[in-house]
């Protein structure tokens, strides 16, 4: 008997089912002041947010297209619907979520996971959250977990949000950050008070169901001194022919001696442009742990950044990227050592097959004030055939000689000898290759939340199917 887990027996059909949308709820595609103002009206934005959006739109139109990564020519932002009105208000009870939407999340295993292993869940469908809830005892400890819009209208948090919103990732950062500033919608706000350590994770799940649309959720997490949180983010979308766009933004503030673990499994459909920006700033003695699995999307640009601002702060990044046919996944991690005795550790694996391209970029900056800092980067990539590409691009900028920096990169192809060895023990070619890939990914998948580790294993099995030829 296979052990039953929360998200078991995944196959792609699980992500590919979809419900017809009522298109009258779609806002016009493209970008204009009118559309942005309409979003503000719809959301009952505060005055500063209205201005913020319009300013971001202005920055967007003046900013050049990003140029560092793979081509995004197939993406025409003017054809993307940036906002879809939700049919129902956000609920704290699944039974009040419209049936088709509830069914979508049921199939993804979210309510079940919530019952079994999570402290709270947020579920976003297209532009808006449809569900958000935390366990009573969690709420009682002072932890806030809600959507950003509600929090912004709550006088207790309004100032806090205004103080932090897009301060780490300003709209001037790059064109898609500006776009995000103009049209952002949904996402989560988490606040963990001083000394509160949440033993079980919170999870937000983002589902983009509408075709030809964009998802622009904003996640803002603030951890006070000595607190702990594990936050899990999952995303998926069904397949359409029209290109979709995900330009989310994640801003994480990790207080003194606090630890935040941020896990993501991204499995967008293979027509998505995933241009996501994630950033964390860490105070003295604090720690950010990123765990990141990128499997989906047509093109990804994703380089979570950790800014180590306090003495002894640390960052760990564990990532895996799997690029199959038609995918070009440009991922990486950026670390800025900006205080003494900070440390960072990057450990990644990238896999490519059937012509997929995966590029891993690491960028480590050690400023002159960061004496006594340590950084170790370990990147491995595996190509499953001769038409696929895998690259690692390390960049280091070290401004002090009192730092300990290590880097190791390995690029390899799946070895015919290893495949033959396993086949000589009775495994067919597909299973042999899947076993090698799972083994390759093992020390990363161990870091994933259990149900996602299982999902990743299934995805690898699935990806390997039909890859023999």
């Amino acid at each position: 008997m296979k052990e039953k887990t929360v998200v078991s027996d995944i196959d792609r059909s699980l992500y590919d089912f979809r419900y017809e949308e009522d298109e009258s709820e779609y806002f016009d595609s493209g970008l204009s002041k009118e559309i942005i103002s309409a979003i503000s009206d719809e959301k009952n934005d505060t005055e500063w947010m209205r201005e913020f959006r319009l300013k971001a739109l202005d920055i967007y139109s003046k900013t050049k297209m990003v140029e560092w990564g793979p081509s995004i020519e197939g993406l025409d932002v003017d054809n993307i619907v940036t906002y879809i009105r939700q049919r129902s208000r956000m609920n704290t009870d699944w039974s009040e979520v419209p049936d088709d939407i509830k069914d979508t999340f049921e199939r993804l295993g979210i309510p079940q996971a919530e019952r079994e292993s999570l402290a709270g869940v947020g579920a976003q469908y297209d532009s808006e959250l449809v569900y958000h809830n935390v366990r009573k005892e969690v709420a009682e400890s002072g932890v806030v977990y809600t959507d950003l819009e509600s929090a912004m209208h709550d006088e207790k948090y309004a100032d806090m949000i205004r103080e932090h919103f897009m301060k780490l990732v300003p709209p001037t950062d790059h064109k898609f950050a500006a776009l995000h500033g103009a049209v952002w919608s949904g996402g989560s706000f988490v606040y963990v008070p001083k000394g509160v350590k949440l033993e079980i994770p919170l999870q937000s799940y983002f589902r983009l169901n509408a075709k030809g649309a964009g998802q622009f959720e904003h996640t803002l997490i603030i951890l006070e001194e000595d607190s702990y949180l594990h936050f899990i983010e999952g995303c998926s979308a069904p397949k359409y022919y029209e290109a979709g766009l995900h330009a989310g933004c994640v801003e994480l503030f990790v207080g003194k001696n606090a630890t935040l673990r941020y896990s993501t499994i991204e499995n967008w459909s293979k027509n998505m442009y995933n241009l996501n920006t994630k950033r964390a700033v860490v105070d003295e003695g604090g720690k950010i742990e990123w765990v990141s699995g990128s499997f989906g999307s047509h093109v990804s640009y994703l380089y979570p950044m950790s800014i180590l601002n306090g003495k002894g702060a640390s960052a760990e990044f564990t990532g895996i990227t799997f690029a199959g046919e038609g995918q070009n996944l440009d991922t990486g991690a950026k670390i800025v050592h900006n205080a003494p005795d900070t440390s960072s550790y990057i450990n990644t694996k990238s896999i490519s097959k059937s012509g997929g391209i995966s590029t891993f970029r690491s960028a480590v900056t050690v400023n002159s004030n960061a004496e006594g800092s340590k950084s170790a980067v370990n990147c491995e990539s595996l190509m499953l055939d001769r038409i696929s590409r895998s690259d690692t691009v390390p960049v280091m900028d070290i401004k002090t000689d009192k730092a300990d920096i290590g880097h190791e990169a390995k690029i390899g192809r799946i070895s015919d000898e290893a495949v033959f060895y396993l086949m000589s023990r009775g495994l067919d070619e597909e299973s042999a290759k899947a076993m090698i890939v799972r083994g390759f990914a093992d020390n990363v998948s161990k870091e994933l939340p259990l149900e996602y580790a299982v999902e990743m294993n299934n995805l690898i099995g699935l990806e390997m199917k039909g890859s023999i030829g």
Partner: protein
Amino acid sequence: MANLLEIKDLSVSAEEKEILKGVSLTLSENETHVLMGPNGAGKSTLGSTIMGSPEYTVTKGKILFDGEDITELSADKRAKKGIFLSFQNPIEIPGITLSQFLRNAHEQVTGKHTKLWDFKKQLKAAMEVLDMDTSYAERDLNAGFSGGEKKKAEILQLLILKPKLAILDETDSGLDVDAVRTVSKGIDEYKRTTGGLLLVITHNTKILDALKVDKTHILADGAIAAEGGAELVGQVISEGFEKYTKKD
């Protein structure tokens, strides 16, 4: 006794290079055969070709197993029919434990699902025969194993998978005196419990001590140069291969 493995006029090449040149061999159930020959003669090539390595191309002749032509079968299908090769250089597979892997292989080869508990029991018993610490079962397959440990792990797989034909490619080389004895014990155990056919490729006699050799074949320059009984082993050890290799 029935012929289990018949190799008929087999020619094999790799990367345009002809390595085996018309090799014929007949091996029957329950027998023990020894294959000797100078370095580079083609012994490993023969072993790998019987196992179905895609590295080698059969250009002529065929391989019959249990009367069936298996020349075109993939390695996994041959494994399922009961062929096993102990590799001269076992491959390291990081991230998969020896025990996970063996359980999977066992399921594939037997086509049966074994309860985890029962499998662990079998594995433990086999590891005892080989004086292997059980902690090795939870280590990644061959990864970081010493040369000798890798060879022991091969024989462990032999004991668990119980094939009808076991080809042991220099399983004894690189082993210390005690390890050779332990590995021989494992091979003997396999032989006693399954009565399988053994094809032992070796440069030494130590590993043969515990075995009753039925036939010896000398492979030189890709062809069978001589065949005989157990006595041929001793003769080769004392005289070398000189008389079988043509000088030109």
